């Protein structure tokens, strides 16, 4: 029997994704003069909202997990929470894009692609099998290649799209090779099945190790961990900024979901082989990201490197690998989705009123756009981990997890993960604080007018959603952390 509930959120969203171009056509045909972008965005928001509601009701009713066709996909507390995160990101990205792409061609397709990419992320979230996971990843990746290249006449955008496509193809190839090796060893592609077969005593350890290295490398490109991170700043810089927000807040997090499933379920029994390696990669990733971010002068590149650093923080939860650590990792993913996505949306908003991407253009912004500057300050302080904002709380639980685990014999080294995280937080404060200083302390650059900027309302609304969430999660984290804890419990159930 096919239980449709297990894939209902995906189905809803996919339906809307298919219908959006038709809506665009109808508007173009019968309602000349109406903004196609706005109508399509509104239509897409309805779809995202419905899918969100469906996932939310599942979490709210605290339902037991549901399998789809014999267990290729499973809707449970874990996947539904991630669906909500991805849909939340899609919501504010679409809201901000309504005005952002108003001058571009092919607007309905833009929304369609965003929603298909989101469906892919949702499939990854609920996948219980390597094959469904891979299909989900590819759905998202291929849609994002097109989204990055959306402004095809923009040389920078086209260049970054090509780069993204080549790197994406390579990483998919690596992942697939690893998957095929795992299948050869385990005779199954389901995570749980692999988890039972692959142990420290199973034969062909070297093949398993190779498979581990290949899949981690392949997924490592997706989440941009060092040394697979080079593409991220270029692509984040070149892509249309609302798409960048989705890449950083959405599709990158999809990579983490895949890593969670692969390492914490599939290869959990051989964790002694990878926990130290992942720990070292985590430390290197956060350090490289933060140090490189300091010297950036383009705000999108700076935020890209900061994303790399944040990926290093999230990796801590993989290395520690306890249920508490996983809930901390989920918490960090949740807050990062709003603070980093929000920061990119702010950059996009300012771009519509001709404020450039150089950080010098942000000097004196507090006078020209008080609310946006306030929002950016909140995002920067939250990313730096200053209480009482969301980023502080998630870092707080994230850094506490290795300390908790270090009390266990054999895991004493994990305390250094927390120490490294803390040192990196201190480093990162420098470049976050610089943006705040530019906006609030410095005077605008010569030649720029000091008049108040007129910002598009829909984009300001998207920023407001992110600011609200960052403050709400910071001040009242209880329900969010409980949801993350339940998700982690369902994950390990």
């Amino acid at each position, binding site marked *: 029997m096919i239980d449709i509930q297990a894939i209902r959120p995906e189905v809803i969203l996919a339906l809307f994704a298919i219908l959006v171009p038709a809506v665009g056509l109808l508007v173009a045909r019968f309602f000349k003069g109406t903004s196609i972008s706005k109508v399509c965005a509104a239509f897409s928001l309805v779809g995202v909202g419905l899918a969100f509601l469906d996932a939310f009701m599942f979490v709210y009713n605290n339902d037991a997990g549901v399998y789809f066709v014999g267990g290729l996909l499973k809707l449970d507390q874990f996947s539904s929470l991630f669906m909500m995160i991805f849909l939340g990101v899609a919501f504010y990205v679409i809201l901000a894009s309504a005005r952002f792409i108003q001058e571009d061609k092919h607007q309905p397709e833009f929304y369609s692609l965003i929603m298909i990419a989101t469906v892919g992320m949702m499939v990854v979230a609920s996948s219980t099998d390597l094959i469904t996971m891979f299909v989900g990843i590819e759905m998202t990746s291929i849609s994002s290649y097109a989204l990055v290249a959306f402004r095809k006449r923009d040389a920078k955008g086209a260049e970054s799209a090509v780069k993204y496509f080549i790197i994406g193809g390579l990483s998919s190839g690596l992942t697939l090779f690893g998957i095929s090796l795992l299948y050869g060893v385990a005779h199954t592609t389901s995570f749980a099945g692999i988890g039972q077969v692959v142990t420290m005593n199973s034969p062909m350890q070297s093949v398993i190790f190779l498979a581990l290295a290949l899949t981690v490398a392949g997924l490592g490109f997706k989440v941009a961990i060092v040394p697979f991170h080079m593409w991220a700043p270029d692509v984040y810089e070149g892509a249309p900024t609302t798409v960048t927000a989705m890449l950083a807040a959405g599709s990158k997090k999809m990579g983490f979901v895949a890593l969670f499933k692969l390492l914490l379920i599939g290869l959990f029994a051989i964790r002694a082989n990878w926990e130290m390696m992942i720990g070292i990669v985590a430390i290197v990733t956060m350090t490289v990201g933060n140090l490189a971010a300091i010297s950036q002068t383009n705000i999108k590149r700076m935020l890209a490197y900061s994303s790399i650093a944040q990926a290093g923080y999230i990796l801590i939860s993989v290395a520690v690998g306890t249920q508490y650590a996983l809930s901390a990792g989920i918490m960090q993913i949740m807050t990062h989705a709003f603070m980093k996505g929000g920061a990119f949306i702010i950059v996009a908003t300012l771009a519509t009123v001709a404020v450039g991407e150089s950080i010098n253009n942000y000097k004196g912004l507090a006078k020209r756009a008080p609310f946006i500057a306030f929002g950016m300050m909140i995002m920067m302080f939250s990313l730096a981990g200053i209480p009482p904002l969301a980023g502080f709380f998630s870092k707080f639980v994230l850094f506490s997890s290795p300390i908790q685990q270090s009390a266990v014999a054999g895991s004493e080294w994990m305390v250094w993960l927390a120490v490294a995280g*803390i040192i990196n937080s*201190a480093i990162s404060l420098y470049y976050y604080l610089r943006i705040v200083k530019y906006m609030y302390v410095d005077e605008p650059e010569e030649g720029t007018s000091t008049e108040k900027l007129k910002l598009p309302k829909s984009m300001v609304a998207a920023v407001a959603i992110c600011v609200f969430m960052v403050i709400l999660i910071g001040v009242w984290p209880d329900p969010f952390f409980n949801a993350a804890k339940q998700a982690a419990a369902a994950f390990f159930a």
Partner: protein
Amino acid sequence: MLENVPVITLLILIPLIGAMIAFLLGKHPKASKIVALVFSAIPLAISVILLSEFSLNIGTFQYVESYSWISSLGISYTVGADGISIVMVFLTALLSFLAILFSWDVEERTHQYMGLMLVLEVGVMGVFTSMDYFLFYVFWEVVLIPMYFLIAVWGGPRRSYASIKFFIYTHIASLVMLLGILALYFEAESHLGYATFNMQAIASVSGQFGQLFQIVVFGALFFGFIVKMPMVPFHTWLPDAHVEAPTAGSVLLAGLLLKMGAYGIIRICLPTLPYAANQYQIVMIIIAIVSILYGAVMCLAQKDLKKMVAYSSISHMGIVMLGIATLGQLGITAAVFQMFAHGLITAVLFMICGIVGHHVGTRNMPRLGGLAAKMPYMAVFMMIGFMASLGLPGMVGFLAEFSVFTATFEAFGWLLLLPIISVALTAAYYIWAMQKTLFGPLTKEVDVEHIHDLTWFEAAPLVVLTGLIVLFGMLPGLIFDYITPSVKLLTAVVFGGA
């Protein structure tokens, strides 16, 4: 009268509301000043009522409020005040109010300035009343942001460097402290059987903590606190921050923020990690004495009046540390009294520095001289402030230092000779500074024609502060009565009533 009122929450909430109103009054700078004054006057009034209603002789926390906040991690909003806190709360309310009054002539971005002053008050008030580690840490960090902006926007020429140095330096210290707090949390959970960030609950199982664990965690927390105090060799952010900060910012920085570090050691390190406290005693003595002497010697070398006062703060906070290092009831009581005394005195000194810098145009002592003729009232207050700071009997500073030194002698005997050198040094640098600025022939290096004496909003805070300095110097019991029972309780629990 205050039985059913959430007083402590009001103390935190009222300045916060005031700050929000002030931030919104961008077009009405005058109104924002009045709002700030009113919303800092109310906590002052509440704290005075609180002092009068406070039950002496009990020593435990009073007016405790507790609400579950983040139940999934055992975090609660728990605030309350014991004798140590209540004195600090009064100091916070008093100095915030006076600093806002003193800033009456701020012209640039007035509403933001006033809002930030109030946010600062919220943070400091929260630190002194939190009974939950998470809450404590949140307030501890909240303090940084307004102080950063106060220095970065309204500061002197090198404000950009000084403000970022201040923020990052103290933020690193806080993060190290956070590691210690997290370790305490998990360790206590394994002994208590439930997860909590409540300070008293965690302290109640302190006897079961392992020795190595205590030493490591004490190190982390202690580092966080001594950077804030600041103690040599982690003091370098302080002179920079003070020299560049606006006057009222300096008053609050020296008067309140430094006290947070000492308060943290007394409130957290000693009762929670008593074994380690004994082990660290020698470290505390050394950094205390080094800070006292180094601060005093550095004062002798300064040309900038304000930098001299900044270094004198390091020296005087060293005396606080020395009192704590005795690990005895008298020493810690005296340390808290010294914190209070230094808060009052240093506020006067920084206000004087601000007035000299503002009215004369320079604080560089070699370029000053004979100011007593032009600014007689300022000269009077400067002398009172300097005398109080160097420990003239009859003023609050004398009693504080005297009792710390008595406790030191009781605990360590003739080791006292080392820190007591600083008394002579202190007298030397203050008297020299006075000679160079107030007396002698009137300086010719600056335009002395337009120098005028104190304005009303400068004089009023100075009158209040010097009045209190003399009052509490004559009647120290007024303050000791609050501190002693609480310290007695604290040392009884920790060191078996030393």
